């Protein structure tokens, strides 16, 4: 299993993103790729910037993105993801491949972790990266624009975990949004894994717009109950009537990690109007994981 963590700087927010990523990856024994997407210079002056960077590299002054990756590497080490204490970050081990720069970590732990640098727009570069390699989850910070949240969820062919307002000192609970969509089962399985890693109780809710809950909804709710009981995880189950996105947000508040399936149908409709998961992710005030079908 492979996780992709996108960080934009060396702020505490980025550290939180790494923290969550490492915690979940540890639970699943997953490989971790950390990516920094830097701004690309205009095509007019691309060559000039490249020449200046070559000159700077000879003075051991590296691309600002390399400094960010170095910081990420140290943070990951601090979180205990790398057992090999001799694994070191060495900028001379950078290799260029397929439009990205990769840091090669020669020691054995290096196989578990990849440090990547790309330049361009966040959406395009994450899209290219997820096309280049299969990732299970892309873990990202909160995009500044709602439209960007929409595009990332729709166009990245992975599950997307958006880390919003995460406080590592809080005891988070899991809000599992259950319905009859194809992605729900995978969302429940992920919910169970994350619950175990964070030692967090699960609140599974099924929301219907009308008072009558369809067969699909009832079956999904029964399945989640059965599964969580089997996994011996602390949980509560609710069936609520209301507008799904609003109910999810109200129930989640700021102290829940929301987990739900990514919408599977109607790409064009989703592009124009969005979808229930997209609207929830845009308005959420806490971390949210959207699991791909």
């Amino acid at each position, binding site marked *: 299993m492979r996780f992709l963590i996108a960080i934009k700087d060396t702020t505490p927010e980025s550290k939180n993103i790494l923290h969550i990523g490492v915690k979940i990856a540890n639970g699943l024994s997953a490989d971790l790729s950390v990516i920094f997407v830097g*701004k690309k210079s205009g095509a*007019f*002056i691309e060559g*000039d910037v490249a*020449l200046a960077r*070559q*000159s700077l590299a000879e*003075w051991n002054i590296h691309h600002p993105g390399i400094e960010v990756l170095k910081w990420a590497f140290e943070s990951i080490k601090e979180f205990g993801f790398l057992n090999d204490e001799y694994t070191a970050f060495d900028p001379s081990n950078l290799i260029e491949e397929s439009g990205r720069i990769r840091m090669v970590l020669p020691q054995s732990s290096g196989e578990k972790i990849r440090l990547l640098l790309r330049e361009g727009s966040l959406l395009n570069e994450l899209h290219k990266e997820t096309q280049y390699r299969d990732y299970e989850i892309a873990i990202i910070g909160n995009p500044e624009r709602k439209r960007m949240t929409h595009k990332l969820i729709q166009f990245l062919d992975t599950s997307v975990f958006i880390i919003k307002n995460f406080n590592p000192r809080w005891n988070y609970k899991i809000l599992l949004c259950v319905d009859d969509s194809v992605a729900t089962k995978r969302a429940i399985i992920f919910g169970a894994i994350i619950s175990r890693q964070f030692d967090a109780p699960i609140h599974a809710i099924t929301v219907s717009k009308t008072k009558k809950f369809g067969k699909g909804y009832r079956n999904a709710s029964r399945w989640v109950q059965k599964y969580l009981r089997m996994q011996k995880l602390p949980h509560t189950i609710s069936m609520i009537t209301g507008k799904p996105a609003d109910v999810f947000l109200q129930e989640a508040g700021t102290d829940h990690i929301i987990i739900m399936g990514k919408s599977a149908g109607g790409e064009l409709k989703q592009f124009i109007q969005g979808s229930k998961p997209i609207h929830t992710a845009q308005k959420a005030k806490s971390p949210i994981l959207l699991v791909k079908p």
Partner: protein
Amino acid sequence: MSNSAIRAFLFWVQQKKWLLLIIAVGVAMYWLPYPDTISTRGYRALILGIMVVSLIITEPVPLPAVAILIAVLEVSFRIAPANEVARSYMSDSVFFIMGSLMMAVAIIHQGLDTRLALAIIRFTGNKIYDIVFGFVSISALLASFVGVHTVVALMLPVGLTLVRYCSAKQPVPNITALLLFSIAYGSTVGSIGTPSGGARNPIMIEFLRSNSETGTTLSYGQWIIMTYPMVLIGILTTAFLLRTTFKPEFSSLDSAVRKLKIQVAHKGPLNAKEILTIGIFVFIFLCWVLLNEKIGMGIIAIAGAFLYMASGLIEWKDINKNTNWGVILLFAGAISLGVQMKNAGTAVWIGNGIIGMTGGLMEQFEVVRYIVVIFLTTLLSNVMNPAGAVAVLGPITLNMGGHPLFMGLTTATSASFSYLSAVAAPACLIIYSSGLVKMKDFLRAGWRVTAASALTLLIIYYLYWPLVVGFTNFK
């Protein structure tokens, strides 16, 4: 169609939205009625001009693709026949840009930056204000001859090393900004001083030469005579304005200078390769000054690239890898478009439109014409690129009345006033890409330097240029 295919298509649409919009605008304009005051050819050249500027600013396709599109549409829109378009793509100015870029790669390849570091420190000492003045003046003087990007590539490591060692407590934002802006603004100020300072200068020389109304031929030396006072005044004002904008955290960089000296001291005296590198450049510079009227600046520049390769100072694969061929192709395309805009009457039409918009002020007060040119060029060079701004505006400003030589020099000079943003000028973008200066720093310092430069240019136009033209035989 499967969901994944639709998703891939939608992703392509959102990636190419600007391209689709620009094509839609181009097609709509093509079919819309147009004013009687412009010819069909002229109107089509106008459409092409709008499309090209939009494509360069939004970059939905690679720049070489824009260069190719210019040729394709010039022929398809029947603006000019295929052979004429092909001819307009290659000129001595394009050779000059190509040769200068190739020589820059060769010079940077020799690692002269450490020599430069030692020379600067010897010259300036360790007082921060002296270092700022030294950075501005050396960047400006060097950039005049070898181009902005070469100087920034050589100077930036020196500046960043001083920043890194100046204090154990980082960051030091004001000293960082002072040193980095000294390099970026200094080299930009210097880039107006000679034709080899930046691609915009040979582009303007080409426009001046090909403008049938004026047919002005400006040699390398004549360009220096006209613009160098501006460089010298610019060095003083830029150093002063940077000092007043960013108050340094401390006044002396004693320990940083010492550490820098230690870092570069191991190099020893100049070696044969370094002497040869400098020797070839001095030879080429002398040829530019003395021979350019006989054999052309472009031929001399590519001869320089030949000498660097022939002497073994650089291999072709390094030049090939590090020269931005796409930009050279785009400049060729932009010059071609400019020539066609002039031939088709588009430039005159737009020029008259701008004159009309000022409500006769330009006829009444000559200086207004120059203020408008400075404003338009500065604006476009801050959002597009200095050379791109000259390529687009050059044919227009040369047709806005006034003294053609003065108008041309005003356009080329004010295209360097791209101090306000980090997106357009190479020097500004390179220091911004270090991640150590912020966009708001460009605005803080940029408006002062832009205002001072514009004022200096107006004074030079009013007092100095008429004097020079009156006393010499070039017109």
